[in-house]
């Protein structure tokens, strides 16, 4: 009788350890070696790892041991179906983000105007890149000497940034109020009258 109770408790403890082991392996960014795991789980970790491996073997995710560490990986045989898009996400250059932002806020805007706002020359590649991604497109020509091309943003731009319309972009003052535009040192900021309201109380910092 007593033995049975002990068995049930033991089984429960075992399941608890198995679950924790599963979670630790899942959440870790690097493979975990058996010694580290034993420190959290106990000496029986070797058996538990084998049990987990067997459980996951037929599934879409498998537990593998690589270079002395254990980790979950998607099943090898699914690789062709998972690797559909080879390109890894990249960070957009600062110049490109700025150019995109200026087009969004000042459209329709010519390349010359973008350059005068940024204060540096815009490489042709930047506009090409933004256009390739479907964020901007050429607008009407400006009716000024040389009839320069203007640039505007696309619907895909709104889509990508989760905006319903261009009107929903925060205005300059709203950017300032939200803390995204702060050009002056704190003390000098007191002189500004435009955002007086934001300065009403200093007790919130």
């Amino acid at each position, binding site marked *: 009788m007593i033995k049975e109770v002990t068995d049930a408790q033991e089984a429960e403890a075992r399941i608890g350890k198995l679950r924790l082991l599963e*979670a630790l392996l*899942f*959440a*870790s*960014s*690097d493979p975990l070696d058996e010694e580290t795991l034993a420190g959290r789980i106990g000496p029986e970790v070797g058996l538990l790892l084998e049990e987990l491996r067997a459980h996951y073997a037929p599934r879409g995710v498998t537990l593998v041991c690589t270079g002395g560490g254990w*980790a*979950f*990986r*998607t099943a090898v045989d699914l690789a062709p179906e*998972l*690797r*559909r*898009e080879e*390109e*890894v*996400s*990249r*960070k*957009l250059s*600062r110049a490109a*983000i*700025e150019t*995109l*932002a*200026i087009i*969004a*806020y000042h459209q329709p805007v010519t390349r010359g105007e973008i350059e005068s*706002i*940024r*204060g540096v020359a815009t490489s042709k590649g930047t506009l090409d890149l933004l256009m390739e*991604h*479907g964020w901007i497109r050429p607008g009407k020509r400006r009716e000024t000497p040389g009839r320069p091309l203007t640039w505007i943003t696309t619907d895909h731009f709104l889509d*990508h*940034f*989760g*905006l319903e319309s261009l009107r929903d*972009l*925060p205005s*300059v003052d709203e*950017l*300032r109020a939200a803390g*995204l*535009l*702060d*050009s*002056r040192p704190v003390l*000098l*900021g*007191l*002189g*500004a*009258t435009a955002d*007086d309201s934001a*300065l*009403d*109380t*200093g*007790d*919130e910092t």
Partner: protein
Amino acid sequence: MADLLAGREADTSAIAEGSASEQLLLVLDGFEGPLDMLLALGRDQKVDLTRISILELADQYLRFVAEARKVRLELAADYLVMAAWLAYLKSRLLLPEPEGEEPSGEDMAAALAFQLQRLEAMKGVAEKLFARPRLGIEIHPRGAPEDLDLRRKSVYEVTLFDLLRAYGQQRARKESGVLHIAPVRLYSMEEAVRRLSSLLGRMPDWATLASFLPGGEGGGGLLTRSALAAHFAATLELAKAGRVELRQEGAFAPLYVRGRAAGSQDGDISEEAQSND
């Protein structure tokens, strides 16, 4: 804080002593504005917020602000606005209702009670929200994601925050390039001392401090408030130098100023500006 308020009746000089004032300042720094402070005072009543005595609360707040002003003259304008509003509310609750369109004292009290309940509710749910197991702290995503780029149609990872920050930084660079220093249009105390000194000669009798303030500056904005603060500080400075006399009937009553003839020796008149008695 309750102790602090209870103790004030006994001995006002004790409050002015170092430890008590420091304590008061500490208490003040812990508040997120006047409504937050009212809520804290309201909790001290130890009743459900729906059954709180607004009148009692108003009294507590006014006492608190009066004490606070003794140790911290530059008490934020918000606190004074709230004090003025509560004083008005008190008079509306205690005096017979006047004829007119204005909301009744009862309505005003109910509105304040609602605001306190709403703020209390928000503080409560904020706590509940942050008591939940959170992603990256107690709950974890896959630690080693295998980037498949299933969802993103674009290979470039750029968020609205990135975009807005880029624009903000670019604007900021531009602004700091064009206007190097924003004009600081605040009254300094030196300026106020100079101004008062020149005006006092022409004002032989008692006059309210307000009448010395520069007029026509437009709006009750930062500049006007800074002028009030600077002139107030200037009168204290001048009083200390024996060049003016100050008089005030009670807490929040108008402050009167009178120039003092140079060399006059009838010395003990200079009353404490912040005296409530």
